[in-house]
């Protein structure tokens, strides 16, 4: 399997699992572990976990909200203010989750680089 896809799926799976019993930063941890185990190169280090968790958070929040006619999402979206648009709030949720995961991915990759070098020595 393509390494990027592998990383993508592993991040997703781990993020979903960890979020069942850990707070929001479980997505950072998931991306960090995945990046260490399945290292990627260049900008994919950031963007793969970004997309993975971004999709997870967007789709999950979409599923929760759409089954309730976006009642709360509309209100939160006018609080923030996102013009009362629930889709913007879903997008914002996904983006924040993505950024957190992306950062976790970058950290995991750099840890992998440093620790592996040490082991090689």
């Amino acid at each position, binding site marked *: 399997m393509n390494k990027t896809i592998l990383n993508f799926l592993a991040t997703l799976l781990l993020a979903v699992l960890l979020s069942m019993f850990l707070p929001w*930063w479980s997505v950072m941890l998931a991306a960090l572990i995945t990046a260490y185990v399945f290292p990627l190169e260049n900008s994919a280090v950031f963007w793969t976990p970004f997309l993975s968790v971004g999709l997870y958070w967007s789709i999950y929040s979409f599923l*929760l909200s759409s089954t309730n006619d976006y009642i709360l999402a509309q209100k939160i979206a006018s609080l923030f203010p996102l013009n009362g648009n629930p889709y913007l709030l879903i997008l914002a949720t996904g983006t924040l989750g993505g950024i957190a995961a992306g*950062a976790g991915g970058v950290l995991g990759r750099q*840890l992998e680089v*440093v620790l592996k*070098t040490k082991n090689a020595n």
Partner: protein
Amino acid sequence: MKNTKLLFALLLSCGIFYILNNPIGKLPPLGIFLNPSTGIWQNEKNESISGEITIPGLKDLVTVHYDAQLIPHVFAQNEHDLYKAQGYLTAKHRLWQLEFQTYAAAGRLSEILGEKALDYDRSERRRGMGFGAEQSVAFMKKNDPKTLQLVQDYADGVNAYIDQLKAADYPVEYKLLDYKPEAWSPEKTALLLMYMTKMLAGRDKDLAYTNMLGLIGQENFNLLFPEYFDITDPVIPKDTDWSFIDVPQTKQPENLVVLDTTRASLPQPHPDNGSNNWAISGSKSASGRPILANDPHLGLNLPSIWFVMQLSTPQHNAFGATIPGALGVISGFNQHIAWGETNATRDVSDWYKITFNSDGTKYLYDGNWRPVTQRIEKIKIKGRTAFQDTVRYTHHGPVVFDKNFKSDKERAGYALRWIGHEGGNHQKTFIELNKAKNYEEYVAALQYWTAPSQNFVFASTAGDIALWIQGKFPNKWEGQGKFLMDGSRSENDWQSFIPQTFNAHTKNPSRGFVSSANQHPVDEQYPFYVFNDGYETYRNRVINDFFQSKDTFSIADFKNLHNNNFNLKAAELLPFMLKQMNTELLTEVEQKLYNEISTWQFNNDIDEVGPSIWDAWFDALKDLVWDEFDQKEITLTQPFDYQTIHLLKTQVEHKFMDIVATKDKKETARDLFLLSFKKAVKAIKEKEKEGYDWGKFKGTFVGHLLQALPAFSRFDIPIGGGRSIVNATSTNHGPSWRMIVEMTEPPTALGIYPGGQSGNPGSRYYDNFIDDWAAGKYHRLNFLQSDTQSEVILGTQTLIPTKNE
């Protein structure tokens, strides 16, 4: 290089973690807040109304049926389980509000909102809110452990709910403000009752009156603030025989008023806090059955102050509006009786000027120095170190204002004697009322009620109607407590209380109806001193005239009266004003508005422009008449509208009509009418673009408890009415619960309130009653006679005891 990159990655991660895990500016911690697994997305749902829930400490099964209005119908096997279930269900639907109200009561808002709430919190602590709540719990412990046990059961129910909550389940407000619910306790129920006492018996103008007296002198003061009005139509009918009262009014000591001027004042409750209630006897009812109605006028908030429930055991079956935090139904009915309350405001808070010794540890009393007791108030503040305030207590009560708070007098202080500090067993009144079967049991239940004093209306299936004005009232000497008193003389203390059985009441009066609308409780024949504590003078006359207008009345008449928009105040002044106006001095625009208001028939309906012009006009007029009291240095107050109108019509050239600022000219009422009209037109013109019909001009809204957070509030609600109108809906205040009960067997009832059963802004039950409420509609209350299934039940939840207990 590798290490530099690692360091960079580490900093990036830490930075992002910090930003998403902490509140930034006004934003909540975004990572926590938006995480779909635990954040607000988990609140995007309606409430569950089926299944089984285990609750520790239950003795038996409790069945909870929900109907289409999300009203829980609770069938418990005993009272302990019943109130445990009430606590559990209230927490389930209203947890954040339940807790927030007691934070507000206790002066703990700084913990949640930060430093901006500190001044409010200090005021509440210095007012003795926590002290009063402690007195109530102590009173129950000593006198009525049985009731206290039920209050504990309620607390256990609330805590059973809190204990099973995961962070993901916290109401959205906790997530927004980033805090957690804490355990409930009987003290919190006592605090909630203090909150109600403050809201309904916290009005007091003694210090402002004292300042007024110094400014204008006794004669003018009496003119502006009469004890009775010529049109007083009291709650207890005028012809009532008081000869059974054999305790005299306290004799007035020879005493001088303490003349003083103060800048200090406590935050005052909304001036419109009040209500309507009435009941007609079978002889006046179209169906031959008594009918009772109640509509408490309070701030219009989301979540609503009311939560409707049916609460039953095999021994009793009560239904109606509850208040989150208090046990039992507050305004409602059972199989035998119906009851409701309006505020019976009486002057139950008085101020004493205290003289301290040099180090402030003792105060002068009858020539001796008495020690003060100190109460340390530690106020936790979000994001800051705690603030510590020391409040000195005298035998009168807490010294609210002194050199540490809103006063600069080195050796003087102002102590508050308030009925709220008296302690009492308020909760028992409702627990007993919920079970009462007849007039005698209703009266027996009322005796425990000390504050806030209420007009308790009553009707029974047996055919009785009644109204008791219940509270614990000091037996005051003529004029006692109107002004600041000298706290160093014992003769100024409250000498005794009016014996409870001598509280004013009426049962089955010959006129065939009882009613109250916050007007004078009694006329001058009542043998005890009753101070004019801002009694309402309009709604009561419209209501009483209505019930004298024909022989029999139906439910439809009751609905019409609740929704009656007739503006008696305007009707009593406006024709006079219009006649006095010299229309030649009006511009074209002013003439147009003059013509518009001239054709108005005094109904505050939403599509009329008359009420908007009247409102702006009368407001401007009052400010012109009472311009001499618009001072920043001392706290003053305006006379009541009724007296203002009376003077405008009968003393057109009185010196108060003159505008102080225009030194070379002496204005009369006639001049003021013209000047204020021009001001009103200006105010109206500013709103002309959006339209100035009454609905838009008034702009009624129901605001979320967090400073009307717009996203969680409802605005521009199309409903008429206004201040001093039977439909008392003003901008953010009005009929918070409308109930009509016909005393059939079992009773048939209608009820509605401007909110919804759910406290969750993500639920469709959050505000789903508002549109029907605004339209003057009612919902039939499904009074279930047994816990068997029926077609009105949408879902059933069973609360089950933990096994092996």
